[in-house]
């Protein structure tokens, strides 16, 4: 007890509410990118032949932007269900990394908390809350930060999807709104390309995505993605070895 009182970080322990609202506040700038993306998904889902309920519920069942877009596009192209499912799963594998990186801060929590925060662990919520967890003093309520950032993202994504479903039919084709999808991904990918291994992954995935177009069942996407991952990984391995031997 005395020890806790003397511990300066304990006296600075922030309340659950203050952690939660800090998470919400810090997430706000990312919503400007997420909202148009969700809107585009809503429009695209309907255009792909999904029903409004399928489109809207996919945003809470999958809750992963890129994978939802791919799901709708492949489904619309009449791709076999196994390829649709496989492509979606490969795209979402990256979450294992976020889960591993954030586990040390959450593993002591009760199961219901870990299930809830796991469900809310998206690219955008992770990006904001890992900064607080790593760089600010630990606190017993620090998980409320991820709850705040994750819930704001979830609510925004659902509303953007619903809005897209409602207005979809009224947006003229000449606006080329579906072009916002590659643009969104350019905004994600371009700034994070740093190493030769990254470039190898990009060149390989991009090239195979084009020359693989004639492959059956739109399997070019999953094949290009896997080859790009392998190329980047191999080049990073070679660089590590070159660094170790020189």
């Amino acid at each position, binding site marked *: 007890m005395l020890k806790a009182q003397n511990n300066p970080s304990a006296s600075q322990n922030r309340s659950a509410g203050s952690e939660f609202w800090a998470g919400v506040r810090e997430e706000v700038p990312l919503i400007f990118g997420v909202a148009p993306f969700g809107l585009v998904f809503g429009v695209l889902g309907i255009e792909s032949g999904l029903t409004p309920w399928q489109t809207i519920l996919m945003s809470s069942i999958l809750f992963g932007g890129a994978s939802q877009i791919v799901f709708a596009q492949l489904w619309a192209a009449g791709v076999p269900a196994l390829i649709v499912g496989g492509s979606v799963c490969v795209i979402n*594998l990256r979450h294992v*990394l976020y*889960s591993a990186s954030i586990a040390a801060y959450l*593993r002591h929590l009760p199961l219901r908390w870990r299930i809830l925060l796991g469900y809310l662990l998206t690219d955008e919520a992770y990006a904001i809350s890992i900064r607080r967890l790593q760089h600010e003093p630990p606190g017993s309520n620090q998980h409320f930060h991820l709850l705040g950032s994750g819930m704001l993202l979830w609510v925004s994504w659902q509303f953007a999807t619903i809005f897209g479903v409602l207005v979809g039919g009224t947006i003229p084709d000449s606006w080329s709104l579906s072009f916002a999808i590659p*643009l969104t991904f350019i905004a994600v990918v371009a700034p994070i390309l740093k190493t030769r291994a990254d470039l190898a992954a990009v060149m390989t995935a991009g090239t195979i995505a084009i020359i693989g177009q004639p492959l059956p069942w739109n399997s070019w996407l999953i094949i290009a993605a896997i080859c790009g991952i392998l*190329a980047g990984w191999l080049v990073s391995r070679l660089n590590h070895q070159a660094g170790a031997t020189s």
Partner: protein
Amino acid sequence: MIWFIMIATGLFTFATRFIMLSNGISNRPPPWLVDALGFVPIAVLTAIIVPAILLDPADQTIALWDNPRLFAAALAIIAALVTRQMITTIGVGLVALWILQWAM
């Protein structure tokens, strides 16, 4: 069928998020797997970006010089590198595409 695939992929996606938070797995994934997973976003997203820009939506052939999407994407890449903001990148790319489609 679509509901089955949606729920199955939804459960898989939840598993990718929850797996390291479960108490069953106490170790971090091996370093080679962490390295490989680090390339998932750029490989997947590039495989979506490149055909969406290069292939003509009408007939799925490769379009280069008469392709407004290619030039709009180039401007968007510059905007992304300079501003690092999603909303600016989308705005620059869409406005460039509208102007180019009107002019070309």
